[in-house]
């Protein structure tokens, strides 16, 4: 549900990074903020605890520039990953156009990944969205670590919608922009 302001010639899309605690959602945003042309981004806003764990959300606006006369923006959000912050996650999901589910590839994080994935679909269904209009990408993060699932195994465990998959290491930046590009193109194609 993008905000299309024909009068001001603006269109805004909302993209949410979802996933379990410490999977790399905030690291994705920090990398984008660090690397992208400063003219194309706004301020990175983080509502975090003293231990730098996301308490509510991180927010980073990106400007694509003027496309066919429309100033086009993507508003990137993360959710708090820890399971007891579900009320906050639901609020961040309101009005979402596209979701990047960040999966922690480490074998030891399987339960947290599955719990977060199921929680995402519960919350999306709970807010009554037409999910066929939603952009969705699974980012398999931390591919640079050892003791990780294969892409095929993670795909079977977490991708019941047969959605696009991207491999990444948010710490080094590998795959971060590729993931973002896929979901941005999806939301434009799906919502116009």
């Amino acid at each position, binding site marked *: *549900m*993008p*905000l*299309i*302001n*024909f*009068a*001001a010639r603006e*269109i*805004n899309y*909302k993209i949410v990074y979802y996933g379990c605690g410490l999977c790399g959602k905030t690291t994705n945003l920090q990398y984008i903020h660090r*690397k*992208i*042309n400063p003219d*194309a981004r*706004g*301020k990175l*806003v983080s509502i975090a605890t003293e231990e730098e764990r996301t308490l*509510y*959300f991180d*927010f980073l*606006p*990106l400007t*694509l*520039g003027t*496309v*066919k*006369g*429309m100033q*086009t*923006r993507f*508003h990137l*959000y993360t959710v708090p990953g820890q399971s007891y912050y579900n*009320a*906050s996650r639901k*609020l*961040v999901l*309101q*009005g*979402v156009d596209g979701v990047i589910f960040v999966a922690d590839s480490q074998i030891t994080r399987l339960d947290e990944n599955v719990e977060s994935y199921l929680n995402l679909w519960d919350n999306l269904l709970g*807010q*009554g*969205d*037409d999910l066929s*209009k*939603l952009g969705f990408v699974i980012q398999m993060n931390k591919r640079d670590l050892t003791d990780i699932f294969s892409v095929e195994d993670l795909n079977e465990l977490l991708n019941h919608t047969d959605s696009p998959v991207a491999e990444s290491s948010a710490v080094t*930046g590998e795959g*971060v*922009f590729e993931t*973002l*590009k896929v979901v*941005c*193109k999806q939301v*434009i*194609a799906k*919502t*116009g």
Partner: protein
Amino acid sequence: MARRKGLVINDRQLDRCDDLLQKLKDVSGSSFLALISTSGQPITTASDEYHPETLSLASLAASSFAATQQLAKILDENEFTLLFHEGKGLNLHVSQVTDQVLLIVTFGHATQVGKVRLYTQRAIEVLRQIFEGPDDETMPEMDADFEAAAGTAMDDLFKDM
């Protein structure tokens, strides 16, 4: 299910909103006003000299307001329809216009809270008609080539990353 209505604003609606915000600013003595969507995106603003960072402000105000609504539910209150923060030099007033639109008003101590609340409430009644009332103007459509052009713009923005 299948609830995915976007918020689309046409020229006439925006002109009426801009006029109204300007009047509200003048009569209430407020310094900055913004209409934003409940998902945190700015629609339009009215200001003379004071220009806060609008994108972050919209995102934080919408989230804060949504959290307030949830607090109301937890407290078995039907709804909290406004959010008010009092500062040393500046006050912030956020109120609900429709299910999809919020109104942000900031004002200093040169005016009174009661005055701002009174005029804001009156303005909201008119704003509600603008967003919810029938509008004869046909909504324009997105350029057919928008998707392809946006794809090219994205390739340019993200190249070499």
